[in-house]
């Protein structure tokens, strides 16, 4: 945590975890004691120099932060904006998620719990959790929708190599939201010795605030790096939004900078008009899901509608409550990016920079492409855009290979 960063969002959330009308706790009473315990441990830790030093030491010495802020010149030339990539893909385990996982694993130890559980969609959060569990000698169970265990078989193997137990979830739609349901059920039954290590800035209070605080180093680093590199703040910051942790991580340090536009790019899937998307803010409505009030894809009866995205990490029918608030307050702008747009940007970054991005992060790249002309016109000059390259694309090679038709037949 850098000491010179501004404290941008004032007092949000309130003491009960509300971001305006969003957030809060919509949970069984059985979990309230554990959430209170977590909240107390987290607040104590954030004021404890020894915790912050240990966390910072792990981030630097183990995860490899601060990550680079890289001027992507050939990509920039193609899109008509100066683009700086926040290279979270270079972190250990290949994504920003390691920051949150290390923070929560440290808290787990402090609370004296010896078991962590997690939900995962693409498997990235599961792998990160299994990694931290190995490092901290914690038992680890990862819930993963049965459909996703087949789509992401390599990540299942990675988690098992790291010593985690992977439980395929066969309930409901057999994807991320059902994995989250199953993890909640496990937590209710085993809350005495278990921490539920939620992978994004969603869920009941204090998770949205706590996860944001563990990943906000992304934006604090990027803000300083951008000043060092260019002598100015960026005109815009762009990130993909599924649950929204990488976006909050990079937005947070800039919320108090009125000249910096914040853009979140949701998964537009096959197009908003098809109904097959995962854009909870653009295409959803206010509701309660997984312990928080936020924007949700749902029918008029409040039943959750299944989301669709080529990116497993964005394939979630809700979004963190702070994003819902940033949307309502107008501070951030949320726009859908289709599978097709994301994959075009994916290919462009591969070919211009020699960087294979996660398909999630390709949504942010596509978003930068979308906003560049308008920003250039508005500013009357080349805009400066910081894009959060939240993860690397190794895990997506199979999906992308199929999409581009470049896999040999026998593969």
């Amino acid at each position, binding site marked *: 945590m850098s000491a010179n960063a501004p404290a941008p969002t004032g007092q949000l959330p309130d003491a009960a975890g509300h971001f305006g009308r969003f957030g809060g*706790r919509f949970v069984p*009473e059985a979990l309230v004691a554990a959430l209170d315990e977590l909240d107390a441990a987290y607040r104590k830790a954030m004021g404890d120099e020894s915790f912050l030093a240990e966390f910072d030491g792990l981030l630097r010495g183990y995860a490899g932060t601060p990550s680079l802020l890289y001027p992507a010149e050939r990509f920039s030339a193609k899109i008509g904006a100066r683009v700086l990539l926040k290279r979270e893909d270079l972190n250990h385990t290949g994504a920003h998620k390691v920051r949150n996982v290390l923070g929560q694993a440290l808290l787990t130890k402090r609370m004296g719990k010896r078991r962590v559980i997690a939900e995962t969609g693409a498997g990235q959060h599961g792998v990160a959790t299994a990694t931290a569990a190995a490092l901290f000698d914690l038992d680890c169970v990862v819930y993963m929708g049965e459909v996703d265990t087949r789509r992401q078989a390599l990540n299942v193997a990675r988690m098992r190599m790291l010593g985690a137990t992977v439980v395929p979830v066969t309930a409901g739609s057999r994807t991320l*939201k059902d994995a989250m349901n199953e993890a909640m059920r496990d937590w209710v039954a085993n*809350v005495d010795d278990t921490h539920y290590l939620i992978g994004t800035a969603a869920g009941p209070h204090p998770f949205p605030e706590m996860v944001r605080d563990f990943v906000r180093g992304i934006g604090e680093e990027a803000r300083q790096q951008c000043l060092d590199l260019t002598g100015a703040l960026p005109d815009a910051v762009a990130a993909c939004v599924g649950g929204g942790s990488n976006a909050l991580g990079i937005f947070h340090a800039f919320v108090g900078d009125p000249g910096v536009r914040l853009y979140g790019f949701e998964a537009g899937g096959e197009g908003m008009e098809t109904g097959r998307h995962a854009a909870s803010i653009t295409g959803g409505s206010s509701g309660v899901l997984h312990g928080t009030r936020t924007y949700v894809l749902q029918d008029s009866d409040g039943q959750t509608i299944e989301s669709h995205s080529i990116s497993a990490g964005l394939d979630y029918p809700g979004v963190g409550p702070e994003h819902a608030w940033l949307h309502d307050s107008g501070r951030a702008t949320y726009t859908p990016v289709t599978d097709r747009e994301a994959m075009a940007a994916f290919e462009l970054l591969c070919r211009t920079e020699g960087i294979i991005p996660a398909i999630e992060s390709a949504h942010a790249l596509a978003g930068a492409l979308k906003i560049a002309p308008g920003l250039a016109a508005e500013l009357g000059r080349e805009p400066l855009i910081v894009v959060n390259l939240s993860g690397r694309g190794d895990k997506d090679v199979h999906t992308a290979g199929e999409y581009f038709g470049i896999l040999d037949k026998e593969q």
Partner: protein
Amino acid sequence: MSRIGVAFDKARADGRAVLVGCMPAGFPTVEGSIAAMTAMVDAGVDVIEVEIPYSDPVMDGPVIQKASDIALAGGVRVADALRIVEAVAATGAPVVTMTYWNPIEQYGVDAFARDMAAAGGTGLITPDLIPDEADEWLAASDAHGLDRTFLVSPSSTDARLKMTVEHCRGFVYATAIMGVTGARAQTSDAAPVLVSRLREVTELPVGVGLGVGTGAQAGTVAGYADGVIVGSALVRCLLDAPDPAAGLAALRALSAELADGVRNPRR
């Protein structure tokens, strides 16, 4: 006093506990669930708990999840659940609804309370709504004269037990074990402790739920609680049956066994 309060008072006077039987609305069909709940009343279940099926039921175990999935796949709507409440209330038994919060929020909290009261329902059990977040429901339930049953748990602090029962009306629901719904071979040791902690802070009747599947277990719980809440074991009668008639027969038999159990409290 609410109709459910009357049922608890009468049972208390008779030296027995109230039997609350839960069934998801629309399982296996809307008409099928009305038939099932009516059969439960005929066989001695005192209070019917109509659960509104929800896509993400985090407090429910595999049996009720499966029944809810079947109901949702059959297209059941919140409006159907209200129709079911009305049909079952017509038997004279008190009918409560158990529901996750999002379906109510989307229906409109006040509109749901109004329609629930008009259908003859007595109140709501809200497994994922705690009083801390319930301002709108507190107002709507007051406006339409409905009972409010919040849950308490063995992990609740004394302060939260007190705060929660202060917001309850009708009865309070003690989740006796830490975990999701589902029949268990043994009922929990934590339950009597939780009930005695509740006695310190409220005069309200206490219903104990989660895990009861036999008449003997019902008798044990009836020994210290005012109400015995049974769900999964009843639902399983229909899920496991080869045909609807056999399912109803099994449901009647188990209901009668449980009704007998609550009349023979083991103290």
